[in-house]
């Protein structure tokens, strides 16, 4: 037991609460974040990221792919001092942002589990709509946690529970991990031996929301969650087998849910039967959403703020993301408390919150440590140097498609079909902002649907196994083989090389190549080397361009969001 640990942390939290209150009024959140990160650093911080690094980073984080060469060039050549803020706002307003969030939250919440009972498209549609309309994230969480699949029109959010087969242990583990930031799996059999604040009672308190529920399939095979009116949760520690504990539904340290007495014989609206979804008068599971997403459960806000932070910054203030415990304290406790509080204060507006993060100096720092920075000062948990983030499988595949021009070509084809074929529609789409926005969503959806299948092999190669946390990534020889000899990438590169090879001026061509793939112009020596490389293979220009492009695409610089 490390009381001193916890005491120190609590002190920090209390101090932060008071400090936060005085500063909150007029200083913008992003500035307060930077102050918290920079406090005590004495300038031991990485330099600001270059425009090239920034435009690539923010596109990847907010739209899920690198920008086109055209977008990159426009940004680099924009002399405006406000161009970064403008870019952030433009991206946050784009349909690609909602799509990116759909993918991030799908992967976070479903962890690549196969869609068995709810089609992936329904779940993704639910997420896309939520982020398109910027629905408050607490509401989204409540919708997911309360969905049982019974309403045929809104089965999307029920995928969270149904594709976990409604399994009470799995639900306990994953609601704990993903909504409360606590992987209490190891507290199933006894109080956690490493984390004093992971109690067996916490595990079973959460478990009690699920223990009466079960997956039921009707005559057509449609799965929903049914629930029995009885079933109490008792547990024993494997170390103290003589003591049997009982618990009702309860979220961590919050008050236990007060349970009504139900008269005998009155237990059910719909009684259990084969292939019938039982509905009790009093449902434990129905208490879950309001019990977890509650002002009385600070762990919910902290977890959500920490996860949003990690999307942008590459790691959590608490890291791993599902290991919130006194034994694994936040790197910046006061900052985490502030973020949790502000997220709630802004009504769980995810877009607004991410905007503040994107506006920070912390986010816009270079990933290159300044010369002489000590390993301690450069540690990722300091956020003094930007964290190198390996591209997720989706970011990687979409960025490869963007770099090789596949996305642009598809978009052009979509726009052609949508708008050229019917000039009236084009005019209609330009009438006002709302219609323009709708038009952009239409195009984005068509492009996404047309190309998403291409992500499959990338997910297979770069993703983690279904049901495993996808927060971390791994490098394997098969990935390198796939990128070296696999057909999709090589033929896309052929397309890119073919197009670039038509640019007569070697220097301009190398510029275009670097902007397309690495979102920056080449350094003078890089340009020179590339021109020399091409000159050495005059008879096979496209081949030489292909080789150059492949090298850029497989470089570390491309593999990471840097």
């Amino acid at each position, binding site marked *: 037991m490390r009381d001193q640990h916890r005491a120190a942390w609590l002190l920090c939290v209390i101090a932060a609460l008071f400090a936060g209150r005085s500063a909150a009024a007029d200083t913008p959140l992003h500035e307060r974040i930077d102050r918290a990160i920079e406090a005590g650093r004495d300038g031991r911080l990485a330099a600001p990221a270059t425009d090239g690094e920034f435009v690539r980073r923010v596109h990847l984080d907010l739209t899920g792919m690198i920008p086109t060469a055209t977008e990159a060039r426009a940004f680099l050549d924009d002399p405006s001092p406000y161009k970064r803020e403008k870019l952030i706002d433009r991206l946050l307003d784009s349909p690609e942002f909602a799509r990116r969030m759909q993918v991030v939250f799908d992967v976070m919440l479903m962890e690549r589990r196969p869609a068995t009972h709810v089609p992936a498209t329904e779940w993704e549609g639910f997420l896309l709509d939520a982020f398109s309309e910027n629905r408050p994230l607490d509401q989204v969480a409540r919708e997911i946690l309360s969905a049982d699949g019974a309403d045929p029109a809104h089965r999307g959010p029920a995928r969270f529970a149904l594709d976990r087969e409604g399994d009470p242990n799995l639900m306990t583990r994953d609601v704990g991990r993903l909504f409360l930031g606590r992987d209490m799996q190891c507290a199933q059999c006894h109080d956690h031996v490493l984390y004093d604040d992971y109690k067996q009672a916490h595990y079973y308190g959460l478990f009690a929301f699920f223990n009466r529920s079960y997956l039921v399939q009707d005559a057509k095979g449609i799965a929903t969650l049914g629930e029995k009116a009885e079933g109490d949760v008792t547990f024993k520690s494997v170390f103290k087998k003589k003591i049997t504990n009982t618990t009702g539904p309860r979220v961590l340290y919050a008050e236990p849910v007060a349970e009504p007495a139900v008269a005998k014989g009155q237990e059910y609206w719909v009684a259990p039967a084969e292939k019938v979804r039982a509905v009790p008068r009093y449902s434990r599971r129905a208490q879950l959403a309001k019990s977890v997403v509650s002002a009385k459960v600070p762990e919910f806000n902290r977890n959500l703020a920490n996860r949003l932070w990690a999307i942008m910054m590459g790691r959590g203030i608490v890291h791993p993301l599902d290991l919130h415990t006194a034994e694994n304290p936040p790197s910046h406790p006061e900052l985490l408390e502030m973020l949790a509080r502000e997220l709630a204060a802004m009504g769980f507006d995810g877009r607004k919150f991410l905007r503040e993060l994107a506006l920070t100096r912390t986010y816009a720092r270079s990933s290159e440590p300044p010369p002489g920075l000590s390993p301690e000062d450069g540690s990722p948990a300091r956020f003094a140097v930007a964290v190198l983030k390996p591209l997720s499988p989706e970011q990687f595949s979409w960025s490869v498609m963007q770099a090789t021009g596949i996305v642009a070509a598809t978009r052009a084809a979509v726009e052609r079909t949508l708008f050229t074929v019917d000039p009236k529609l084009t005019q209609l789409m330009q009438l006002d902002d709302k219609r323009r926005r709708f038009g952009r969503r239409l195009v984005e959806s068509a492009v996404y649907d047309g190309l998403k299948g291409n992500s499959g092999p990338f997910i297979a190669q770069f993703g983690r196994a279904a049901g495993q946390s996808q927060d971390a*990534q791994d490098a394997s020889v*098969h990935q390198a083989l796939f990128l070296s000899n696999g057909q999709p990438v090589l033929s896309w590169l052929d397309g890119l090389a073919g197009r670039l090879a038509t640019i007569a001026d070697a220097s301009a061509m190398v510029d275009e190549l670097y902007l397309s793939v690495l979102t920056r112009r080449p350094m003078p020596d890089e340009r020179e080397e590339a021109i020399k490389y091409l000159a050495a293979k005059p008879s096979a220009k496209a081949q030489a361009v292909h080789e150059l492009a492949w090298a850029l695409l497989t470089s570390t610089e491309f593999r990471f969001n840097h």
Partner: protein
Amino acid sequence: MRCDYSCRSDDHVLSRRGFLGGLAGLGLASGFGSFVNPSAAAAMAKGQKQMLVIWLAGGSSQLETWDPKPKTETGGPFRAIDTSVPGIQICELLPQTARHMHRMALVRGVNTHENDHGKGQYLMHTGRAQAPGAEFPHLGSLAARFLAKGTEPLPGYIHITPGGGGVGGKEAAYLGPKYGALYLGNGAPPANTARAGSTTPASDASRHDLRRHMNDRFANRRRTAETEAYTTTYEQALQLMERREVFDVTREPAREQERYGSHDFGRHCLLARRLLESDATFVQVTHSNYDTHNENFAFHLEQLGEFDQGFSTLLDDLAQRGRLDSTLVVVMSEFGRTPTINYLYGRDHWGTAWSIALAGCGIKGGTVVGKTNAKGTEVVDRQVGAGHLFHTYLKAVGLDPKDDYEVDGRSVQIADPTASPITELLA
């Protein structure tokens, strides 16, 4: 601390805190599989150990293999034969394997309490019962992580199957897909190991030079475990492509191919030998299928005929070439088969009293541990479960099954904390 059976208390916690500190100091990103366990690292330095698992898919019958009960109600029509170790008899369907008994150990008291294919496979591959929300790595993934040096050209966990090939991932659980199985479907070489037709060797070499050059520039001050891991995979890919012929058994002389048999399992055993000789860390060969609910005896005759030839030849070669001492060989299934013979001449799923066989590295040859009763319906001596077997495999190759390792900042014991090794088997 309170707990004394699994987590070995204070030093465990201390090492964990040390680990977290160390992680921060090293600037390593979590989840990139950088293992920092000192004793595992020491074990690795001791010299390369390898593993070969022969997986008899569907559940082979212990009565037709390692624990015959001839002339009993449950024994079936096959007889028992003598082996190279006086006093140990096995089923007559394994005459060639019987010659190797002095190199082998039999565990005849396996009770896994599991009669489901999927759960039995999981249990025997991970040494732990399947539970919702918890996934543990396969033996092959652990070998890939803890036995391999990480510099071998061949992937750490290679699984030769009669079915489809490809890259797994789930096998590694939280170790990450790098340690997942590479399936060689019907022995075919892994995907993308041949240069695309459009890429000449010269062009390949020069694009890789360009790539390395790019990386040097980028990594100047940004070199991390992650960037290193990524760039290393390309060098491994090149090595693997260069050694692609290792997957081609037709390069063996006809006489060699004949010795292993003109069936898939024989070819796959020969491939396993080539892979082990190329320093593959862990090779699994699946022989399918033994799920003989119908005509158990006719099907075992056919399958074990192939097994006996391929397996015994492989043991011969490993022994003669001096590899057996450093290669642990395990023959196992998801479960055994019922002593009761059903009305279809079949035997059904049976995890209650069955056998597995071991040989090689760290194993005391000519050993039989565990005993079933006369009809084979119950274990009467030295009952063991999958956890005990798992501990034994790890111990045999010099890994401490009680060691903890760190994954994504968490501490996990390599093998099921409630089990222990079968020491009688260990040399």
